[in-house]
């Protein structure tokens, strides 16, 4: 597979422009990172509907809440750490408790942020957002899916969190592919084991499945773009039919996609599981490739995890 690469935040930029054209109530707010998050694309098209709140994330979330209470559909944008972390209480109590219709975009998820280092690599945002009652959490796998996700969250009446990455990553889904929030996509069918992944690491999971295929291991790959509400049906079906699960995400192994899948399985059908993710540590500076290798986030690591889980599989 050789595919073109784009940062999936580009999809956010394109999605915002489309929304801007179709819905005059859509507004975009940023906190001094407009270029980097791609919200400046919307700013250029719709300067009167773009607001820079300065380096003041907490204030930005509160302002968005007020705008939404008055009927607007604000998209607030900054890096994942500075929104999910810095403004968590504003998101929890002002926005989610009241069920206010604010769309939150967190860019720069994962260690692949690279040389900026640990402070800028969001590794806890999925966990922080998914524990909030009423929050929808979407982690698109590429730029095309990111655009669809951006457009789709505008149709939900309630708080939503979208997570993007910094690096250019393979664009491997197609415009015509089905996308619905809360409904996972099975990208590769298989019967021995299932990889459930979210974000750009879905592509690594497909590479792993290809590798495993050569070794005679039939691997199902599920793109779990929506972490909340979670598609439990597809998880339970995979557990039943393949009997072994590996989750993969560029996030702490605790509390994110892996945790969410484990909750479903523990309650309904305990199934051997392995989790690919950052193992309870902070990131650091380096190239995305160096960091993916060190933190064991490559397709080779997924292959290893599959073999581990297969050795634990019940007959």
């Amino acid at each position, binding site marked *: 597979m050789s595919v073109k690469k784009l940062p999936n935040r580009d999809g956010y930029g394109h999605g915002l422009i489309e929304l801007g054209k179709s819905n005059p109530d859509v507004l975009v707010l*940023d906190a*001094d*990172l*407009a*270029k*980097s998050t791609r919200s*400046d694309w919307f700013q250029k098209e719709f300067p009167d509907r773009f607001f*820079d*709140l*300065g*380096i*003041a994330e*907490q*204030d930005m979330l509160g302002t968005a809440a007020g705008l939404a209470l008055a009927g607007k559909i604000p998209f607030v944008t900054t890096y994942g*750490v*500075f929104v999910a*972390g*810095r403004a968590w209480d504003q998101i929890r109590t002002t926005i989610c408790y009241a069920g206010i219709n604010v769309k939150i975009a967190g860019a720069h998820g994962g260690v692949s942020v*690279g*040389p*900026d*280092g*640990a*402070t*800028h690599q969001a590794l806890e945002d999925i966990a922080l957002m998914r524990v909030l009652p009423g929050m929808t959490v979407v982690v698109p796998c590429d730029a095309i899916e990111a655009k669809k996700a951006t457009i789709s969250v505008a149709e939900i009446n309630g708080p939503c969190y979208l997570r993007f990455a910094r690096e250019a990553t393979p664009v491997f889904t197609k415009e015509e592919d089905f996308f619905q929030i809360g409904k996972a996509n099975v990208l590769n069918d298989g019967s021995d084991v299932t990889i459930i992944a979210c974000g750009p690491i879905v592509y690594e999971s497909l590479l792993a499945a290809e590798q495993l295929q050569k070794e005679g291991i039939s691997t199902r790959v599920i793109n779990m773009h929506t972490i909340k509400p979670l598609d439990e049906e597809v998880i339970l079906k995979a557990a039943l039919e393949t009997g072994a699960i590996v989750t993969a995400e560029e996030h702490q192994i605790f509390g994110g996609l892996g945790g969410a899948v484990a909750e479903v399985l523990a309650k309904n059908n305990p199934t051997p599981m392995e989790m690919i993710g950052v193992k309870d540590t902070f990131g*650091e*500076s*380096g*190239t995305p490739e*160096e*960091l993916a290798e*060190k933190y064991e986030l490559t397709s080779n690591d997924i292959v290893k995890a599959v073999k581990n889980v297969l050795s634990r599989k019940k007959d």
Partner: protein
Amino acid sequence: MVPQSNENLQAICKDVRADIVKMTAAAGSGHPGGSLSSVELLTALYFNVLNHRPEEPNWPDRDRFILSKGHVCPVLYSVMARTGDFPVEELMTLRKFGSRLQGHPNVKALPGLESSSGSLGQGLSIANGLALAAKLNNKSYRVYCLMGDGELQEGQIWEAAMTAPHYGLDNVCAIVDYNNLQIDGKCDEVMGINPLAKKWESFNWHVIEIDGHDLAQVLKAYEEAANHKEQPSVIIAHTTKGKGVSFMENVAGWHGKAPNKEELEKALQEIYGGGI
């Protein structure tokens, strides 16, 4: 440490500027703009003001420096190396895999740092805590904290701005690098922070306004702050983002971008060629 003459400091500032452009060029990323605007502020502080012992980084009586705007760590790493905290050659490992010089300061990686930073707006609170502890422990060390002007938009800064005078923390010296640029453009246009001196005054701080590139004014400001009792002091330093490299000066785009090879050469010529 023996205080340096104004002339020596000026020469050191050139080396620090050169370090900044070389380090970011070698890294291929990083933040030259806001590093260059803080050169005189930090060179004067580290060489002539800050009471610290490179050979004993945890000396309990040392003055503390908190880099609240963590992205400008190139300038901090440079003055740390040049006052003896670690070898100057190590500067070129900035942002590289395995380096102690992380893209934003990591206190666990590098001795001599007082705090990790990179999420803006948090440093002044830490400085207040250190200063309050000094009062409680009858220590005479002072605490310095460098902030960006864009960074002042963070609410936590103004929470901390209330705390310091409330507890009479005259051992706190805040420094604002007032270069009037942040990432999205001019602070005035993104989110106005003026009238700045009046804001700090009304929060009950002793305000000292200076040209942040004039070493004599910078040194005098630190002295005035140290002698001012019962109130914390804030030095509002008017600066130029990218100072010393003509094509970087006052250009928002050089906030977080590394020079390429030709740009590096041009920058070094300007830094060492004509006097700044």
